[in-house]
């Protein structure tokens, strides 16, 4: 790469001011994307459409209408489970390999209105189900810091695109940590909003009561700016929150952590956590304490059960949401002589992880097991939420690791689904509780003979609709981090 790419904040300001054009920005993005092709971050590019849209943005700027274009000319990578009209939305699956969405997700419509340009759709674990982007039907995405390792998942493509400097912004989706975990693995900022903060209309459903579109940037300001554009209530999504969005992105650097109470959750610092990641959390904690924040020990006693709850509740919803892929109205259909065979042969195109989750989810909901699994799962989920509510009576935000280990080699966890699932142990609780959370880069693990230095991510979680405060603390930590 020739020079460090501009941030979205800088680029949008430059385009609005006439010091840069959307056309240039988009052109540069496609160059960088091609250079980073070996990462396999993108599944499809929409070059012609992007250049037309960029030209339109430039015309609007020239006509003096640029002031409200918060993301004027900024190229964005969009995870391929978010509908962009007129182009592929494959969800990383052979079931939708040739499917073209007839509508935009609401978040995409908001991006367009802000002058952003979607340059392409990015790779993901099939239907967002996975923690490594190895479950894509179209091959894995590689980690920009070490291409023998995973980029994380399921939003691996969008995160890699941002981390590799192809584009300043990415949209991903979160159900169990799918934006934060890859962000931690690749050294980017990843944001999971409060459930309902961003419309789910046009986000292909996985775990409907957990899903949220998440934002990705190289900096906190960028990720916050993107969230401020896509957040807000939507009449097309009955689960979207009516809470007013407020200003999420301006003036974050002025905030001062003095007086804030930061929670240190006992259950997140036990066995299985790599020492370098623990050290990163401690360093961040100490910087906050030095700046006048109060560090408070908190307990989230139901944390150890997060994965188990997730694999009942979320997976049950997932199996239900996948029932519509039957070859009748759109997407892949296998040739068959009778209807049942058509269903069976068509759905045989799901990858192994999908089949596993469909089986698991169907089992959890099936007669005789519903109470023990789904029923119990939702009850414990309420307890997990209760843990956070109690903690937030005493603290304003909770600091923790994002993942127990850094990015692992491609193929390492392929044969052990449970081990793969346990990756999400620190991220999943926020999805279950519906609260917002962000992952921030904090240095690297030490390079060893076996392993290069790899990015570390630390996590902040806050009460419902506290994204602004998380961004403020995150902005402070960003200044203090080893990467600054």
């Amino acid at each position, binding site marked *: 790469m020739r020079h460090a790419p501009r941030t979205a904040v800088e680029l949008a300001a430059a385009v609005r001011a006439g010091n840069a054009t959307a056309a240039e920005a988009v052109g540069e993005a496609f160059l960088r994307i091609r250079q980073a092709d070996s990462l396999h971050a993108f599944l499809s590019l929409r070059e012609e459409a992007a250049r037309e849209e960029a030209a339109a943005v430039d015309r609007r700027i020239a006509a003096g209408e640029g002031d409200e274009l918060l993301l004027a000319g900024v190229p964005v990578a969009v995870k391929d489970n978010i509908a962009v009209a007129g182009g592929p*939305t494959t969800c990383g699956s052979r079931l939708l390999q040739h499917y073209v969405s007839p509508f935009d997700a609401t978040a995409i419509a908001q991006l367009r209105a802000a002058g952003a340009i979607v340059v392409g759709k990015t790779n993901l674990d099939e239907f967002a189900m996975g923690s490594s982007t190895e479950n894509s039907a179209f091959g894995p995405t590689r980690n920009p810091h070490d291409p023998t390792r995973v980029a994380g998942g399921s939003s691996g493509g969008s995160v890699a695109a941002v981390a590799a400097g192809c584009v300043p912004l990415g949209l991903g989706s979160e159900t169990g940590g799918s934006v934060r975990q890859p962000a931690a693995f690749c050294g980017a900022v990843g944001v999971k909003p409060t459930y309902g903060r961003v419309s789910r*209309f046009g986000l292909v459903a996985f775990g409907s009561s957990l899903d949220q579109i998440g934002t990705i940037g190289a900096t906190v300001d960028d990720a916050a700016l993107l969230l401020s554009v896509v957040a807000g209530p939507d009449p097309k999504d009955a689960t979207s929150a009516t809470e007013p969005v407020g200003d999420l992105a301006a003036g974050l650097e002025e905030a001062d952590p003095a007086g804030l109470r930061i929670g240190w959750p006992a259950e997140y610092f036990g066995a299985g956590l790599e020492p370098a990641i623990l050290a990163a959390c401690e360093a961040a904690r100490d910087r906050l304490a030095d700046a006048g924040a109060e560090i408070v020990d908190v307990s989230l006693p139901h944390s150890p059960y997060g994965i188990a709850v997730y694999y009942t509740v979320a997976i049950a919803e997932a199996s239900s949401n996948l029932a519509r892929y*039957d070859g009748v109205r759109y997407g892949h259909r296998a040739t068959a002589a009778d209807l049942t065979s058509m269903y069976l042969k068509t759905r045989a195109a799901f990858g192994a992880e999908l089949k596993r989750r469909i089986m698991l989810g169907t089992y959890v909901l099936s007669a005789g097991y519903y109470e023990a699994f789904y029923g119990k799962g939702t009850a414990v989920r309420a307890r997990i939420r209760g843990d956070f509510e109690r903690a937030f009576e005493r603290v304003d935000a909770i600091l923790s690791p994002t993942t127990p280990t850094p990015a692992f080699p491609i193929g390492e966890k392929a044969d052990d689904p449970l081990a793969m699932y346990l990756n999400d142990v620190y991220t999943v609780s926020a999805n279950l509780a519906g609260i917002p959370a962000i992952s921030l880069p904090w240095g690297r693990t030490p390079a060893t003979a076996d392993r290069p230095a790899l990015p570390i991510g630390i996590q902040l979680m806050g009460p419902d609709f506290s994204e602004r405060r998380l961004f403020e603390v995150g902005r402070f930590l960003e200044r203090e981090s080893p990467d600054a």
Partner: protein
Amino acid sequence: MREPAAPAGAWEPVIGLEVHVQLATASKIFCGCATAYGAPPNTQICPICLGYPGALPVLNAGAVELAARAALALGCEVHPRSIFARKHYFYPDLPKGYQISQYDRPLATGGALAIRLDDGSAKSIGITRVHLEEDAGKSTHGADGTRVDFNRCGLPLIEVVSEPDLASPREAFLYLSALKRSLEYLAVSDCNMEEGSLRCDANVSLRPRGESRLGTKTEVKNVNSFRYVEAALAFEIERQAAILERGEAVVHETLLWDAGRGEARAMRSKELSHDYRYFPEPDLEPLDLDAAWLAEIREGLPEGPAARADRFVEAYGLPEYDAGVLTATRPLADWFEAAAAAFDDPKEVSNWVMGEVLRLANERGETVALAPEPRPLAPAALAQLLALKAAGTISGSVAKEVLAEMVETGTGAAEIVRERGLAQVSDAAALAAEVDAVIAAHPGEVAAFRGGKQGLIGFFMGQVMKRTGGQANPQLVNALLRQKLAG
């Protein structure tokens, strides 16, 4: 078609009906597609009702109101909170692979519908529950595959489940008729079984008379008229009775009614293992109904058919028979009342509505109604006609002709009578002259009449009518003839 068998003597039928009713909303339950019947296939569809990736449902307030109206009118307890649930099964006309319905937290429970049995007595049929759900598309099976039209997919339905209180196929028929009338009156639905806006699945079991425990039930589907429901139940009762008589057990299964053959056949048992895997619909919020809003709906409920018939007897002094005919449908009752408001002889209005107005409407393939346009004509127009008749300007038979022309051309009564010179002669002096002339011309008949042949009055009437071109006021002529012939 086989004749329904006589009731199986030692066995008592126990019948419950699950009726699906399409609500008369403008748009579908979870999307803005139109609901009009009869559109070309797959022209009233969108990504939401087609279950596209990323599509989400949003609940139609109009559907909620109609459902609440129906539940209140059926005497149910409407729950302040009800919850939608996903009901999973695979079928080509069910796009999402699940139907959004309600399961353990339905809209309403615990109501009743009164029916009038053939012997005149009343019976109350319990209603277990009323819940909201979406309709599926329509599948047509052919040799080259199954064709699916998704226009119907996503239409709002209420499912009305009765208690197993029905004791015979005839009661089932009466229950369906009463339910249809009640829901039509509320303008909740067209309740048109031919168009599919009302569908019925029947559950039936037998038990020894006097026994309180229920026997094994079977479910009969695919019955698309009230008569077929009656026939299918009769068939099934006979079939179950024969099994039980042989000392065997009835198998719990689902049967499809074949109207052509007049029999119900079991579906393949593999299809029966439905594990619907219900769980609460995560894409929709709970449905919370405000007590004040419910009270408003309850207050605004239109008069039901039975109450309206009673009022017609009371307020208009009509015989029960008339009241029954006139309240058969709400539009007809509305039409009658509008006419009765414009003409001060309700019995006369009733006779004409039950007679000529209904006949003319039927001939034209129309139903009597006030909206969207008055059909077959406006009530006030009938009132004008009846006023002319009452004033003696036209006779009853002429009035019938005039009415037919009014319906045909849309012209008013007075104009037609004037243009065609139909006003009858009611001038007593002029008529007296004609009567005198006829009497003078037929001395023989006069003598015969005076000698006892009273039937000859018809002959004299005919003669006067001939002389007056049919325009003599017959009552006047009759009176004059009798007066002068008595002479």
